[in-house]
């Protein structure tokens, strides 16, 4: 009788708990709170937080290779790089590239903001991260969740939880992180600049855009293919106007389904053993640095462009060159309207914002090609 009781106790998870597990529970509870109460990116943070909780319950073996339920999600979804491109398929079906087509020079802003990535890359190397790790941390500055996961899972899978959570966290914190930088680098006069109406974009241009962009980018940087091909296919679904069912399936059902497995798998990589190290704390710090530098680089790029442009652009839209669609564009609009209440920058900021998505993918592909 006593033996049975003893057996029961030893086979229970409770006796195998470590202090680290308890800390991870706390991390999970904080993220659950942020997701549910504060609604910070709840679609992702909620499954991530729950993933963290369940892998820090000992003896469940949910992440046991070739055995655990969540390991299969992780292996097939993320390790084999299936989910991030599927998310991009859905994003493509939702993104309106119209503002970028109407004002193609904003592509430069989306590229300019990526300069922050390279600054952070070298900073991370200086602080002792190896090249693969540094690249995975730097990509956080692109503020694009799926791209961050795509790159980290290939270069430094042990950092996946930390880089993914910090990318999503900083995206949610755009309205707090970006405005001080915007105000620091622009004058009141610049923020007041009103931009004229965007030129209309024809249906033919909208249809040609994903096809031409997909071909151009994949010919130049073939490693970008998984993400760019899916992004542009999704966009072609949307703009062609003839496959509304596919477009809706990609942007709603499929997107929602893969988001569940993405969040859960990312959360599940965060066991106490991999997550609780000083390195991880440092990733959050460097990720924030990357984000701030990218914002600054976009703003400065816009100011440089203004030196050559007859019709001045409002330099604030440069800050939208980090991807974070549409949070960064919203933030630009808000700061712009604070300076001049008749300033409506939203659509102007969407140009660099969607260009930022493409820019981040290209930056990731270049890092992958050189370091993978």
């Amino acid at each position, binding site marked *: 009788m006593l033996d049975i009781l003893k057996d029961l106790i030893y086979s229970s998870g409770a006796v195998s708990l470590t202090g680290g597990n308890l800390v991870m529970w706390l991390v999970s509870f904080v993220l659950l709170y942020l997701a549910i109460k504060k609604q910070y990116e709840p679609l992702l943070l909620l499954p991530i937080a729950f993933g963290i909780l369940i892998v820090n319950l000992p003896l469940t073996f949910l992440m046991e290779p070739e055995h655990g339920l969540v390991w299969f999600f992780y292996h097939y979804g993320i390790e084999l790089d299936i989910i991030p491109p599927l998310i991009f398929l859905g994003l493509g079906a939702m993104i309106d590239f119209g503002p970028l087509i109407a004002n193609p020079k904003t592509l430069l802003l989306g590229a300019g903001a990526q300069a922050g990535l390279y600054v952070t890359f070298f900073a991370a190397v200086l602080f002792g991260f190896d090249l693969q790790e540094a690249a995975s941390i730097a990509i956080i500055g692109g503020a694009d969740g799926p791209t961050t996961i795509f790159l980290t899972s290939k270069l430094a899978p042990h950092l996946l939880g930390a880089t993914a959570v910090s990318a999503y966290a900083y995206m949610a914190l755009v309205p707090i992180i970006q405005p001080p930088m915007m105000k620091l680098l622009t004058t009141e006069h610049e923020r007041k600049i009103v931009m004229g109406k*965007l030129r209309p974009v024809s249906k033919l241009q909208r249809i040609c855009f994903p096809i031409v962009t997909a071909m151009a980018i994949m010919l130049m940087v073939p490693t970008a293919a998984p993400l760019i091909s899916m992004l542009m296919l999704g966009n072609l679904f949307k703009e062609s106007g003839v496959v509304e069912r596919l477009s809706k399936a990609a942007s709603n059902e499929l997107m929602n389904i893969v988001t569940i497995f993405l969040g859960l798998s990312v959360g599940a990589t965060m066991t106490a053993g991999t997550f609780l190290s000083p390195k991880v704390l440092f990733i959050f710090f460097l990720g924030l640095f990357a984000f701030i530098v990218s914002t600054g680089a976009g703003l400065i790029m816009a100011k440089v462009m203004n030196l050559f442009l007859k019709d001045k652009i409002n330099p604030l839209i440069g800050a939208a060159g980090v991807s974070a669609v549409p949070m960064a564009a919203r933030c630009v*609009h808000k700061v712009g309207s604070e300076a001049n*209440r008749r300033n*409506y920058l*939203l*659509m102007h900021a969407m140009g660099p914002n969607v260009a930022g998505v493409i820019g981040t993918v290209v930056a990731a592909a270049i890092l992958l090609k050189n370091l993978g």
Partner: protein
Amino acid sequence: MPELLAPIAGNVWKVLVAVGDKVELDDELIILEALKMETPIYCDDGGTVSEVRVKEGDSVNEGDVLVVID
């Protein structure tokens, strides 16, 4: 007869004026919603509202007339 145009595309979230209202420069007339963000549209010059061309929930394109002011 001055017209208040939609500066961005979006949905009409709130209509704050009715025909016959006296309005002044910088009054909030309409609130548009675009990308889940509310954007107030301000009056460009004072007068009396003679026509409201939109109702709450309508979707508008950039350049559409929202309100006509005499």
